[in-house]
């Protein structure tokens, strides 16, 4: 896709997905595939690191909406970390902070998973 990629990184029992680039209706399928892969691996503890995510449209948000119920039903969660302010504003505008843990750093997200053990 050129302008979007997902990096995989396992931290203990937590799968970290590091997003890079721009997440729109074209690239959303990449994130979808990445989360699908986590599910296939039985990996439901997921952190999405947005440090290098420069843009998100509603199609990107839609990926989180589509998977969160299922992931939580499996005892896992999708936690969102290190968003750039512009990107955070989009999550915030739509009320995502009420439904998702959105934290400043990946470590904080790890910490939240640890507390939930």
């Amino acid at each position, binding site marked *: 896709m050129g*302008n979007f990629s997902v990096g995989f990184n396992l931290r203990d029992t937590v799968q970290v997905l590091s997003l890079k680039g*721009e997440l*729109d*209706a*074209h690239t*959303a399928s990449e994130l*979808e595939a990445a989360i699908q892969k986590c599910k296939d691996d039985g990996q439901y503890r997921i952190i999405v690191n947005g440090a290098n995510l420069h*843009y998100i*449209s*509603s*199609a990107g*948000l*839609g*990926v989180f*909406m*589509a*998977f*969160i*119920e*299922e992931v939580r039903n499996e005892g896992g969660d999708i936690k969102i970390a290190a968003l750039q302010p*512009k990107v955070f*504003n*989009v999550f915030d*505008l*739509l*009320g*995502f902070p*009420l*439904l998702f843990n959105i934290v400043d750093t990946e470590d904080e997200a790890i910490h939240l998973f640890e507390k939930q053990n």
Partner: protein
Amino acid sequence: MAIPSSTRFLRKVRKFVVRHAIAADLPEKAVEHVKMCVDEACTNVIEHAYDGEAGHEVDIAIIIDASRFTVCIRDHGRPFDRSTYSEPNLVELTKAGKSGGLGVHIIRRLMDHVEYQTQGHVNEIRLTKYRNTNDVPIG
């Protein structure tokens, strides 16, 4: 500009619109808003007006004047029937595992003025940001 009805070109549209929004001296936040809403509107045209079908055209025009920055998006697809539209509820959408339903809401929230028009076979969405006209004092 004109793009084919494929999400592949959304990025190109965003760049085009951002360049003009910056050239028009819109504040940074307004630039972000315009960028996002044009993306949402074009996505909707591609996915709904054209049902995800390639081979159609989406036209994007920009009008800049002293008081406003307007982006007009035109298609020849299915008109948007707003009578069937209702405001989204994020809790319900996620409960149902929906992957969408926020685009129109975002457009309404972030733009100052939004118009949908259909004339003949042409649908047009007009997205407008007003700007402070403290450009130059008269004198």
